[in-house]
């Protein structure tokens, strides 16, 4: 579904990605980890067709991203949804209005009422987006992301700053989406327990490269007591 080979990207001459390789298959949940500034968000934005890259091959749904017409780009984007960082939408729209607008963007067949019910948004559906708490903003973002039944969902630190209950709620939605639709989920997180509990694979980005891309079980089988322990031993503190 996604194949990345020797990906290079730099900002004003400063290299961020230095030959990154990556692969994701249908139905996988892959957690991308690495320290702040490692290039995780840049990598995800390249996959989402939001950013250009300098060198390498990036293939998403069988399309080479280097040679995309605007129509093809839009076709790819219609199969991708995301929760980005920071989580922001039009602040002056109410939750239900945002859902309607994005339903129109994605030409989704799903009923707004169904999404509101699935994500338990009833109590906040008439609240302006800017008035929502961080957790509710993430919840609405996820609802919008799932609205289109995408083949690929990209979540950039979806649970950062949320309390354990809200984190648990969001993960139950992500897992349920993955189970129901067989869609692929790629996410970044700084919570290593989430990687261990929910992800099929973990990708460690360090010094601009994917140093590790394997299952959490394989990492634990190498003798690490936890993914957190693996991270601390393999990633230098800033």
């Amino acid at each position, binding site marked *: 579904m996604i194949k990345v080979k020797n990906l290079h990207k730099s900002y004003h001459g400063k290299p961020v990605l230095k030959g990154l390789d990556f692969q994701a298959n249908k139905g996988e949940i892959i957690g991308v980890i690495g320290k702040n500034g490692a290039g995780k968000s840049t990598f995800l*934005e390249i996959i*989402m*067709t*939001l*950013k*250009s890259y300098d060198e390498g091959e990036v293939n998403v749904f069988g399309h080479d991203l280097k040679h995309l017409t*605007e129509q093809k780009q*839009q*076709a790819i*984007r*219609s199969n*991708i*949804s*995301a929760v*980005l*960082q*920071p*989580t*922001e*939408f*039009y*602040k*002056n*729209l109410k939750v239900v*209005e945002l859902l*309607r*607008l*994005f339903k*129109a*963007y*994605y030409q989704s067949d799903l009923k707004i009422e169904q999404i509101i019910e699935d994500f338990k948004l009833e109590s906040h559906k008439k609240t302006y987006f800017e008035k929502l708490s961080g957790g509710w903003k993430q919840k609405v973002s996820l609802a919008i992301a799932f609205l289109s039944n995408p083949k690929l969902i990209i979540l950039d630190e979806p649970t950062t700053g949320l309390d354990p209950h809200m984190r648990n709620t969001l993960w139950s939605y992500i897992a349920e989406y993955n189970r129901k639709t067989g869609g692929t989920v790629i996410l970044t997180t700084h919570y290593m327990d989430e990687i261990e509990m929910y992800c099929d694979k973990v990708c460690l980005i360090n010094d601009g490269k994917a140093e590790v891309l394997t299952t959490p079980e394989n990492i634990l089988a190498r003798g690490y007591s936890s993914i957190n322990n693996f991270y601390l031993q393999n990633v230098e503190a800033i």
Partner: protein
Amino acid sequence: MLLTQLKYDLIMFSREIFYLAFSLIIPPVTYIFLGQLFGENTYANGLTYAEVYTPSFILLITFSVIFFAFGFEQVVNRSSGVEKRILLAPVSKKILLVSNILRSIIVTSVGYFFIQMLGIFVYNLPFDYMNFISSYAFFLLLNILLLIFASAIYSFFKEMKSALVFSIVIFQFVMFTGGFALPIEIMPKFVQMIAYLNPLYHMNQLFIAIWNNQLHFDTDTFLSLGYALFLLIISYLIIQRQRKTV
């Protein structure tokens, strides 16, 4: 899709007090207030207060709507991450742009008719059908020019705070050097010099002339048109350059 986007763009505009205040409240209030002070005066070419300041305040509203609700809004969306999220959605940039342009035209047209009605009912401004058509057509042209200028200028801003400060300063600058508050001719020499560099001053002079059927193709007119064209080309080049640097 275009109608849906336009509907929500208009809803968002109507809910933003900051935009409403600077575009649809302050200019009409100032128009009435200045009219109470200078309503009896006669201006250049024998024009009345209403004949000079009705097109001027329509242009001021157009400027405020486009610079705040179009230009500044772009920076807000860019800096908050909204732009990135919308870009990812499968909606074409053309639809977003056309919707934004239509919103600006609709809102500024409301301002146009509002000020014209005030002029007719408060200052007995005469109404001529043919003149209305030519003025409105020129007003649409001014809309397009200002949309391009705003796109170019605000493409430099990444942070909302700096864009906000710039917007408030530029509003004051335009208000005083565009001939919207007091005639430029009565201002100090250095203000007059600055005014000639202000494109809104030239647009204002042209609009007043067209509104009052007094447009003559003399040196001043060609200078104003040439200056607007020059800025249009510069703005276009800036927009193209900024698009490439993603």
